[in-house]
């Protein structure tokens, strides 16, 4: 018996047709294809049964059904919408913050006196007088002094 014929016999038996006693059972036991075909037929039948039993909205129920839908829409509209932060004017806020920071920094730059500068800083000091030396120091009163030390023979 070819495979197609076997499957037809399984299907016929599944649909309640008369088949020789024990024949289909033997086919199912001996051939996995037949067993799988039977399982598939059962599954189809169960699905069709479930679809047939799905609830239907009768004409009398339709107004209530629509009222429920309308209530759901109204409730969704009334609920606060959660918009992600990057869609809530994030770039406008970032631009404003940046502008404020730049303006504040510029203002600070213009008016700030900065750290209290030292009274005086000597960057360099020298002399052209041969044999003389130049030094600088901060006095006890905080006044910077630049001093050239000359020898008698330096004079003319």
């Amino acid at each position, binding site marked *: 018996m070819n495979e197609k014929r076997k499957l037809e016999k399984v299907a016929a038996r599944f649909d309640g047709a008369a088949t020789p006693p024990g024949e289909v059972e033997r086919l199912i036991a001996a051939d996995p294809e037949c067993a799988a075909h039977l399982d598939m037929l059962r599954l189809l039948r169960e699905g069709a049964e479930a679809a047939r039993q799905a609830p239907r909205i009768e004409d009398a129920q339709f107004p209530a059904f629509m009222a429920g839908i309308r209530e759901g829409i109204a409730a969704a509209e009334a609920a606060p919408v959660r918009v992600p932060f990057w869609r809530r004017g994030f770039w406008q806020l970032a631009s404003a913050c940046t502008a404020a920071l730049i303006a504040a920094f510029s203002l600070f730059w213009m008016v700030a006196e900065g750290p209290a*500068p030292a009274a*005086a800083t000597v960057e360099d000091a020298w002399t052209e*007088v041969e044999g003389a030396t130049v030094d*600088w120091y901060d*006095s006890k009163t905080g*006044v910077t002094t630049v*001093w*050239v030390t000359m020898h008698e023979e330096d004079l003319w």
Partner: protein
Amino acid sequence: MKRPALAAAALAATLIAAQVAAADSQRPVTIALWAVQASTEGREEPHFDRGLAEIREAVADLSFDTYRALKTGRERLAIGQERRIPLNQTYALRLNALSRERDGRIRLEVRVEMQPPEPGSRVVNVISTRIMLAPGKKITIGGARLEQGELVVVLEARD
């Protein structure tokens, strides 16, 4: 306000700030100067000529007891401007306002020039120094021989 407007406002603020800062850095500087002959005459109390009271503290550490005025006054200099100020027949002071810093300090080049007695001889820089001076603060420069004493110059930057 939209983004382009905010960006334009920020840019304008930055440009204005930079302009103000640049203008401030080019503001002329005023330097007060006191040039004195400092000597030791054996006084119990230091003597200061009239007009030298302001330098008492600046020269407090020096060992002289007599301070005689050679030249006092104020010099207003543009940034980059150099000025020669004769102090007496031998010495002259040269001031060059190099720059005004953002913290208000003034960078100065100061030279004490000595004119040799022989005509035609080259001027000698007895002291050449570059300093940064904060407004209202003094610096003392000295040590050059001057007759029986020494030359002392006190400078103060005035804002």
